[in-house]
């Protein structure tokens, strides 16, 4: 007797003909069921490229708890959880989280537009009116970063959509959402250089991001998606189709790697639903770039089916290890020295 056919007992969703049947009946459901559900009370934050806004809008419309820690009447209207605008690359998200925790202070501070108004290089198009001075930009940024920190600390779930690998880096290494030249910036910007993040770089950035996010919020679950929206342009010396495929392939592979490596990460295959040969003919709008409203609805229907529920089932944060601490001689000496400090406060007692 020969070896058994290794595919014989596999479930139907492993076979293309099953997916094709699903497609014929509507839209394929490629989601591997996650081990948790999001309930109406669970705070969900979203960030990433444009497609993240669809997820945010859907959650809000469905009565789920879209966590919003920052609003401003002067900002463009978009369902951002905090006013960071679009975060296109993993590096940009990593740096945003580090800036929000005060642990990275990039050299890029404020840009002056042709109309004389100043903008934040990290969200230059979010406030159409701009700011009067660089100091006003800095002040608004501090409030913004505090709101991002609160967001990352309070969210039970972060839905993060990866959009691009092509980026522009400021001289300090900051990943910019747009190069200053696009906006005609006249002052304040260093010379940005083009960089196309490799698979290894995106993986490393996502690894660092996940480790650091869990440091902030040990119970956080991250749902990673890859934006199906194609590149609007490439700076690489090749056709935009080729760049788009490479870029999305890198992001998709890196997202898969992150989900494999980090228990807190779940991949949601919205990219596959929209871009596969089995996607409905109306998956894209007439411009053949924007995802159609109908397709967004289908994708979010699948998202709801697998991730949303009347009662959430998000696991609690793992308990911190309670091992007895190792005490160094320096710690012991410092503790004993502190025990012998005399307190002068009583003589200052105003009561």
């Amino acid at each position, binding site marked *: 007797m020969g070896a058994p056919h290794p595919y014989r007992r596999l479930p139907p969703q492993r076979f293309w003909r099953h997916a094709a049947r699903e497609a014929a009946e509507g839209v394929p459901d490629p989601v591997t069921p996650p081990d948790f559900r999001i309930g109406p009370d669970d705070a969900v934050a979203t960030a990433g490229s444009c497609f993240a806004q669809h997820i945010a809008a859907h959650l809000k419309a469905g009565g789920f708890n879209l966590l919003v820690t920052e609003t401003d009447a002067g900002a463009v209207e978009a369902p951002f959880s905090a006013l960071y605008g679009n975060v296109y690359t993993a590096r940009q998200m990593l740096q945003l989280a580090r800036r*929000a*925790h*005060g*642990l990275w*202070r990039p050299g890029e501070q404020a840009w002056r537009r042709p109309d004389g108004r100043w903008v934040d290089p990290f969200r230059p198009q979010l406030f159409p009116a701009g700011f009067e001075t660089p100091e006003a930009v*800095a*002040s608004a940024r*501090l409030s913004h*970063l*505090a709101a991002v*920190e609160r967001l990352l*600390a309070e969210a039970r779930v972060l839905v993060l959509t990866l959009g691009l690998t092509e980026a522009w880096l400021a001289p300090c290494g900051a990943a910019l959402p747009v190069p200053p030249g696009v906006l005609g910036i006249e002052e304040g910007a260093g010379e940005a250089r083009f960089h196309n993040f490799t698979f290894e770089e995106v993986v490393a950035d996502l690894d660092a991001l996940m480790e*650091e996010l869990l*440091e*902030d*919020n040990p119970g956080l679950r991250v749902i990673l998606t890859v934006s199906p929206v194609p590149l609007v342009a490439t700076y690489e010396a090749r056709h935009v189709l080729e760049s788009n495929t490479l870029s999305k392939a890198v992001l998709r592979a890196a997202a898969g790697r992150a989900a494999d490596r980090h228990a807190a990460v779940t991949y949601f295959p919205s990219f596959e639903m929209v871009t596969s040969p089995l996607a409905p003919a109306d998956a894209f709008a007439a411009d053949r770039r924007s995802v159609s409203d109908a397709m967004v609805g289908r994708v979010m229907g699948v998202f709801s089916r697998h991730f949303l529920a009347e009662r959430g089932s998000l696991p609690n944060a793992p308990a*911190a290890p*309670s091992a*007895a*601490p190792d*005490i160094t001689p320096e*710690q*012991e000496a*410092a*503790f*004993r*020295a*502190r*025990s*012998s*400090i*005399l*307190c*002068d*406060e*009583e*003589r*200052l*007692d*105003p*009561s």
Partner: protein
Amino acid sequence: MKIGVLFSCQHAMLAHALRALVPGSHVPHYDLADCRTPEAQQEVLRHLEGSDILITAGAPEEFGPLHDPVLAGRVKALHQFPSLSFGGFHPDTVHIPLPDGHTLHGPTGQYHSRLALGAYLSGFSPGEAELLFNRRVFSRLGYLGAFALESALMTRLYADYGIELTEALERWRARGVFMHSVNHPLNFVMVDMAVLVARRLGLMQPGGWADWLVVEDNLRLHPRHPVLPPLARELGVEGETGFHIGGPRVAENSLSLGQFLAAEYAAFQARPHEVLRGAEGLDAVMTLLA
């Protein structure tokens, strides 16, 4: 029985509790911080002389006649116990020693924020410093593990003086935040400490606590830092954000983090950097912010 107490700012609560625990005792008590001049030392010596038991936090040589070996010759029995210090709720609080032997005073008296100091010395603006009060930074500086570390250090220190602290620590922990600040315990802590000291000196029978006893908490209106939210969440206690500058009407006399940092920066600016760099544990902050 005359039980003299020459201790830290915790002297009054310790003495009041001992007086209640040891019937018929007379317990004069003094703060070592008030005994820096020869005149004060002679005056305090006059009151403590002849004590049957003298409890001291340990007076160094500059305290003249109150220095432990000298004072031991003027009382029947001298016992040293450390003043209670516990930074598990306030791991960011630090004293900044000055060249004159005192410590720097700021908006919350002797208590400063190590993070604020590190941020100041690293060139952060007060607004940028405010961003640092988060779980990630606390984790990297070891603040989240400070409770366990301080518990172990405190237990070990008292064991050196023949006092087993484990059960008492569990009692205090069960009541939530048991320290106003790193060296200001709440009153119930000092009652338990008095019980432990009394037992150690044979003034009380082993076993049991004095839960019936309440002493006035004379440290509650002194300056204090909050148990900051990232740590409070970790410890399962109520977090605060107000930095109490001291005095009654705590709400009115509290600063927000932003106000506190601005006032801290003003205090730092009055001193040369090399003086400020003497604060304990500052290197870790400077390295993190580099």
